[in-house]
């Protein structure tokens, strides 16, 4: 005695192989769940290639630990967004960023926001004049060394300037509200940021590591490197950026972790 190996037609008791919509013997309909042998997940969270965003640090309204499953093709985050709303963070534009799938890949796209999207760097990354990055609670901008405007006048009077030292670039701290804070010119090719004993020091920033990050000119290009800090260094993305499992993003005051099921 053994069990029939296929679906059995409820009208004529003939075997119906998977893939058939009607019984070949009597023409009776086959129920949809028997038509294909596709196995469903118990829950949508198990679906491969679908990503989740976990709010690691959120604003007051949107508590920590909240997660968003990115099931659709596009998911807009912002102060007035429907899908991923952060209503009480005024550093977010109404529609700030879009999480979307391109084929199998999840990407984040800055929707022309005022303050941008920051991603934690995993290794030293190239960085350009005008780029922004974050360490601890601090936001910085890379600036070019201005042209020397201390040459003599037409009447041969020399301009008296403070002593200057060779510097390949400078880093400017950007304060909330948009005013520039500290400006620090690199010592020749390199500049270090941290709590103590660096070129720019923030002794009272509890989220910054003692030696946190370094910007360096190597050859003709600038590089931003995290110095094994506890909380990482974040760089503002240009346009859009592919995401992978374990990436961290800052959107305004909100820190999000990306989880992608393999």
């Amino acid at each position, binding site marked *: 005695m053994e069990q029939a190996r296929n679906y059995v037609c409820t009208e004529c008791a003939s075997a119906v192989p998977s893939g058939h919509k009607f019984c070949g013997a009597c023409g009776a309909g086959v129920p949809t769940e028997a038509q294909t042998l596709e196995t469903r997940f118990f829950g949508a969270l198990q679906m491969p290639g679908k990503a989740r965003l976990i709010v690691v640090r959120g604003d007051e309204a949107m508590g920590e630990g909240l997660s968003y499953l990115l099931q659709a093709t596009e998911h807009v985050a912002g102060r007035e967004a429907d899908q991923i709303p952060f209503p009480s963070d005024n550093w977010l534009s109404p529609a700030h960023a879009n999480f979307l799938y391109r084929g199998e890949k999840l990407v984040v796209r800055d929707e022309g926001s005022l303050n941008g999207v920051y991603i934690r760097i995993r290794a030293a990354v190239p960085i350009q004049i005008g780029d922004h990055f974050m360490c601890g609670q601090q936001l910085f901008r890379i600036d070019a060394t201005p042209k020397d405007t201390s040459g003599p*006048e037409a009447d041969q009077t020399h301009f008296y300037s403070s002593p200057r030292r060779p510097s390949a670039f400078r880093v400017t*701290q950007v304060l909330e509200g*948009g005013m520039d804070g500290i400006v620090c010119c690199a010592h020749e090719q390199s500049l270090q940021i941290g709590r103590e004993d660096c070129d720019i020091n923030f002794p009272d920033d509890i989220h910054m590591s003692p030696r946190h990050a370094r910007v360096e000119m190597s050859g003709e290009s600038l590089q931003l490197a995290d110095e094994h800090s506890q909380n990482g260094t974040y760089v503002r993305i240009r346009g859009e950026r592919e995401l992978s499992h374990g990436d961290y993003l800052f959107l305004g005051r909100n820190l999000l972790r990306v989880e992608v099921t393999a």
Partner: protein
Amino acid sequence: MIVCSRCSKENQDHYKFCLGCGAELPRQSSQPRSFSAPTPPGGTPSLGRTTDAPPAQVGRAEALASASQLELDPTPAEPVRSKPVAVEDPLPPELAPLSDETSPCPHCGSLVPENFRFCHVCGDDLHAEASGDALADAPEERVSAPAVAEASQPAAARARLVLIQPDGSEGESFPLSGGRSLIGRATGGIFANDAYLSPEHAEFRFEGDQLVVKDMESLNGVYIRIEPEVPIELFDGSIFRVGQEILRFEAPTAPDPAPDGTQHMGSPHRGYLGRIALVIGRQTTGNSYPIPPQGIHLGRERGDVVFPEDGYVSGLHCRVNSEVGHVFLTDVGSSNGTFVRVSNESYVPQGTFVLMGQQLFRAEY
């Protein structure tokens, strides 16, 4: 390195107490370290500039430094041989090893390096007597020099600018009549070779009993030394000078928020009063630091903003702070003084030091 006998922690040589357990460390092995090296007095070999500044700047720096010798720094003038540190040298000058020359402290008998003002063990003021002598000497010096100068003055002169030479002595003096006296590179004489003076740089005149200087829209301006512990208000764009450094005060500014109500993101704003920025070109500033509500101190070694490579800045030089909603600059007893750039016109009280181009003068009348 001193290894603590109680807890075995390794401590730096200048520590008096163990960082690990707080036990007193053996005194004889602790090398005294200077945290109060004196500001180089006048006559110090000029500081090397790492940039390609015109050579004429060196003399100007010396002229500024010379003020200390006249009457303000009672510390005996000793040549300080530590050169400014090259950029690649990791050791800042204040941590450079001290010379072996020591003398016993009259109070506790510890051997104290010659350039210490206070005993590093008991805190005794080592120059309490010596400085009295230095002060006693100073007036004589001041009396004799003007006597020579007066002999060479025309009778019509109502005041004069006495040149303070790089070695601290008084040089030539320039007579100022009761009317308008224009000085500048085109004036010739002691002003002719100063590349940092504009051809028509400044004009002096009297208003009643007061000497007044007017900046004739010169390139580098006219600076007046401010009195110690007398606050001077700073306004947006005010320029002042400590040692070789030109600093600009910038009032706080901020862009408007976006039309959609989004605020500009950034580092925590601690209610900054503005910024001080290092002037390195006509429209160019270098390093800049925001001023928190409690104010900041500037100095060569101490303070929130330090200038370890400028030997003409005192250990602690001046402060910028806020009172009743206004921002003030105060010299805290620096050797070489804090100078404020004259905005258009200023009174020049008798005895005031005036810095123009690369030269330092004292106004006598």
